[in-house]
């Protein structure tokens, strides 16, 4: 992998003293290649390499018996620094219910993740309400309702109401009135460039006042991750991110792009189709995965 490649490069120049501009460039090229192959956005890679270069130039990598390993350590720790501290949980509001709103592109895993978030709090003895606010996709309400049944968790019944904004507002009020600890709003997938649908999310946020607005993003997303994350964050405002489908072999570089452009914490990861496939985000494990 990257360590052995860097070992080969750095061992060639060992004995020529500390790292300087020219001896470091080949190593930086290998790191850049690894990150691009991992789907990190090329602009994010450029900035990242700049930071690594500064740290590597000042370091004693060449003093080490294993310079490749030392170099990778610098890269790894720089990745961890950007991806943030380990998140232990979503914070519950001191004034229940805590309203959690899930947003994102079509098919990223929001509805399934809504079930997982609900399951997570339910297992911790919290009273949870699932809110199906996707009235557009065929059988979306049925999908979330079925997940609720599987988990023995209540699903808000919107009756004849089809407007997602009114549904979320009414559900939020009902959750407060009926003493729920958590309400999870599952919204319809949408494009970040669809201004009508992005405005709909703004309205939901304004009316339902969620404590958390989480971008549900697919781990296999490529270069477009920066556009998606930037738009959702600028237009709606995010409080965090959930990365899904990490049980595959995607390197997941999108997470670095998302963190770099939004600065928002990665709260959880989805690691499978079952409702208990839900874990806390570990930046150091993610860093190793991205570097391959």
């Amino acid at each position, binding site marked *: 992998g990257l360590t052995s490649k860097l070992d080969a490069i750095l061992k060639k120049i060992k004995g020529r003293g500390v790292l300087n501009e020219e001896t470091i460039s080949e190593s930086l090229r290998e790191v850049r*290649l690894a990150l691009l*192959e991992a789907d990190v956005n090329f602009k994010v890679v450029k900035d990242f390499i700049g930071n690594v270069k500064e740290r590597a130039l000042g370091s004693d990598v060449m003093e080490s018996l294993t310079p490749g390993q030392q170099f990778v350590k610098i890269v790894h720790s720089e990745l961890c620094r950007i991806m943030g501290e380990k998140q232990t949980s979503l914070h519950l509001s001191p004034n229940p219910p805590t309203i959690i709103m899930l947003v994102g592109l*079509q098919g990223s*895993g929001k509805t399934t993740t809504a079930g997982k978030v609900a399951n997570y709090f339910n297992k911790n003895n919290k009273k949870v309400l699932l809110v199906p606010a996707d009235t557009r996709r065929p059988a979306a309400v049925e*999908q979330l309702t079925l997940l609720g049944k599987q988990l023995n968790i209540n699903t808000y019944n919107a009756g004849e109401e089809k407007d997602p904004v009114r549904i979320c507002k009414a559900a939020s009020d009902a959750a407060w009135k009926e003493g729920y600890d958590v309400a999870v709003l599952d919204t319809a997938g949408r494009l970040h460039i669809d201004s009508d649908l992005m405005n709909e999310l703004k309205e939901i946020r304004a009316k339902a006042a969620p404590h958390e607005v989480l971008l549900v993003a*697919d781990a*296999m997303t490529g270069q477009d991750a920066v556009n998606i994350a930037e738009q959702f964050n600028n237009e709606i405002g995010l409080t965090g991110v959930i990365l899904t489908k990490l049980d*595959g072999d995607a390197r997941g570089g999108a997470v670095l792009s998302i963190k770099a452009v939004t600065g928002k914490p990665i709260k959880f990861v989805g690691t499978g*189709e079952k409702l208990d496939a839900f874990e806390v985000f570990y930046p150091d494990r993610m860093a190793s995965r991205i570097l391959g």
Partner: protein
Amino acid sequence: ILGKKEIDKETLERLEEIMIGADIGVKATDNLIKRIEEKVQRKELSDISGLTGYLKDEIRAILKSPQSSNNPPAPPSTKGEIEGSRPYVIVVIGVNGVGKTTTIGKLAHRYKGEGKDVLLCAGDTFRAAAIEQLQVWGSRAGVDVIGQKAGADPSAVVFDACTAAKQRGVDMLIIDTAGRLHTKVNLMEELKKVKRVIGKVLPDAPHETLLILDATTGQNAISQMRLFNEGIGVTGLIITKLDGTAKGGIVIGIVDEFKRPIKMIGVGEDVSDLIDFNADDFVDSLFA
């Protein structure tokens, strides 16, 4: 796109960024850049306009190359036309959430509109409300959906659907499958079994195995193609969600390596948002 006249190092770097930003990938981008450098060396390329034209030609050629080779028989173009390959069977596969079920709804609408007799199979017996979702699409398209209860063995449902398709003498049968990550061996085995079952009922089927790829996917699309193709064989690709900002450049490397054609692209969530793949339009939008 580049605001200058002649081809220099900076030009090539800017071009490389555009291609990587379009998810073309490092390897495929490097190959294309190398070909450009050789042409510049041999003085066959000297200015920017010639450069983008040449690059577009190269990519277009890659995307069009499979059209002339190893294509399955086309679906019957009129109702009841080709006796030998009726029902014409299409299996739709791909990882989770890429747009398989929605694309089948669009395909059903298209083929029904061409006067064909279409039957759908709700082969996703795993995911919550997957059968209901396909049934809505079936009623939108005005076609029947063969399904069983959730939790049924997908091979059993597919067996039913193939038998029904044969008995009813329909023109086309389109089979929906559950989303699955290509790395899950047991799920790939399940897919292989589905293919065997189809072949037992309808000896020369499936005629088309379409892999659905999401345009927002990065380099992982290559791994998806590789494993699905090794698993049950992919005869064609449909790229969905090209109505977003992702360019879907990853398909260039995939078509180059696996030589399978991109048949159609999905450009929205409505029943008519499925158009035939056009290499010229695709290449133009890559550099737009």
